């Protein structure tokens, strides 16, 4: 699906970004020496367990953590002044919270006007219809369910048509219909040439949506690759059905995969299921890191005991 995409313009450049939180006279390293680049048209999935630093990274990118509160350099749309390009960014926080006495249409009107656009009832109504909240437009947000809040959160993030969309765990709290909506939104936005960053715990979301993946563990980048690179190194399971019955073929690499797909098409067999090994690869990265991490912890404990 993404093979034809061109990732040309540099949208984000991060160089040696670190963030330390001070809590009860203790320093917590949320991010350590992160360097990466994001190009236009990419869908970058930021994957990592709880406490990996995903939200901190997104807060830095959106300017919620301002310059001076972290070390390193962040350049977005070729400028280090995040404030000047915020109108080009849309952000959905994790489990978004809003002012409790504001209605859905007032929030969207605010989101539109604060980004420098003129107030436009049609745009607000269209967006409310798009996220299926038109009938609740005059309802106070405090009365919304979790899924509805997530949808109004998405609406306020995209109403001003941002060039860069940043979503912090956009699927959390959504029912299958809501998930479908987010998936469609990400696909549609990507086809318009916009850049999307989203964080998730879910490996399947990464495989289904992303062009690139960045795995964060304990504030460090463990892996940064395109999905095509991952696909090239992964095996594939292809389940097909013909007149003779069902059969499963395991392709060891992408070349073997495409050769077999050609054969299937030639023989007019029906494909039932294609499963790539990307998820397994990512899971393996996780496992290895945890094992290494535990080993390091063990060494540190022994060292402390000796001391």
């Amino acid at each position, binding site marked *: 699906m993404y093979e034809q995409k061109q990732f040309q313009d540099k949208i984000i450049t991060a160089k040696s970004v670190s963030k330390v*939180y001070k809590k009860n006279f203790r320093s917590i390293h949320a991010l350590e020496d992160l360097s990466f680049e994001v190009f236009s048209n990419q869908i970058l999935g930021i994957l990592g367990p709880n406490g990996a630093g995903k939200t901190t990274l997104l*807060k830095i990118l*959106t*300017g*919620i*953590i*301002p310059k*001076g*509160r972290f070390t390193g350099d962040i350049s977005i749309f070729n400028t280090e002044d995040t*404030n000047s390009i*915020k*109108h080009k*960014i849309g*952000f959905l*926080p*994790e*489990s*978004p*919270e*809003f*002012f*409790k*006495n*504001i209605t859905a249409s*007032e929030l969207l009107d*605010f*989101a539109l*006007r*604060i*980004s*420098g656009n003129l107030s436009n009832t049609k745009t607000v109504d269209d967006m409310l219809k798009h996220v299926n909240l038109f009938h609740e437009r005059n309802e*106070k947000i405090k009365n919304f369910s979790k899924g509805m809040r997530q949808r109004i*959160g998405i609406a*306020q993030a995209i109403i001003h048509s941002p060039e860069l969309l*940043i979503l912090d765990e956009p699927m959390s709290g959504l029912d299958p219909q809501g998930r479908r909506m987010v998936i469609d939104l990400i696909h549609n936005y990507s086809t318009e040439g916009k850049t999307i960053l989203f964080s998730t715990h879910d490996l399947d979301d990464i495989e289904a949506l992303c062009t690139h993946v960045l795995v964060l563990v304990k504030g460090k980048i463990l892996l940064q690759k395109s999905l095509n690179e991952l696909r090239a190194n992964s095996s594939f399971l292809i389940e097909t059905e013909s007149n003779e019955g069902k059969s499963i073929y395991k392709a060891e690499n992408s070349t073997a995969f495409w050769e077999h797909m050609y054969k299937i098409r030639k023989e007019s067999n029906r494909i039932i299921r294609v499963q790539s090994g990307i998820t397994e690869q990512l899971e393996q990265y996780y496992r290895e890191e945890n094992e290494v991490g535990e080993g390091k912890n063990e060494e540190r404990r022994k060292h402390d005991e000796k001391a």
Partner: protein
Amino acid sequence: MKKLKPSRILVLSTLLTRELIRDKVFLSLSGAAVLLVFASLILNEMVVGIQVKATKDLGLSVMNFFSLFIPIFLGINLVSGNLNNKSLYVIFAKPVTRTQYLLGCFFSVLLAVACGILVITLTIFFLSFLQGQTWIAGLLAAAYLTLLEMTLILSFAIFFALITSPQLAMFLTLLTYIIGHTLQQAVLIVHSSSNFVLKYIIIICNTILPNLEFLNKKQEIIYRLPISFSYYFNATLYTLSYSVLIFIFCVFLSRRKEL
């Protein structure tokens, strides 16, 4: 000024004012204030010959007392509450700086205070009209001076909300209000005192905290004594310069605040 972008502050203030005036606390406070002003009708049954004076006296006290609760409850909750939950993520991810947000908070609470004062002013005017007296100039003067006083209290409320917990901020703001009103008398008392420690504490308080009694002209207004134009000018200048100074501290503190 160009960097502050007044249009953005206006958009933000509109949103925050809507949030405040729909708050149950604001509606309850305004309702209670109106009821208390109407209670002067009962008081009038107990006094003879000074019914209008009693209405004015009680009305202006209610105006001052209830206006105080708006910056204390709503102002502190708006700043402190939102800093501690995630509703500010949505705001700060948009083209809004922390200074713009604080200014938005400041103007929206001030507008809510003005709305509260307007409701009480109209109630007092209505009651005094019922008692056969039209009282406009004095009432407007009292409303204006209350607004100035609450501007000062609001800047202190925001300052305390940024440095401490909401409960402690409410207590400290209330303490500032009380000290601000008693400081003038305390200075006069310690002037002749031999206790140096007390003397210095009062001098320090007098230097740091605002003299709120300077903005209290209730007696002059009720007894229709003349108040010079220069007084209003000085009172406005005093309030503005004090509030701007405190606000600069607030901006500095908010930049250091971790979200």
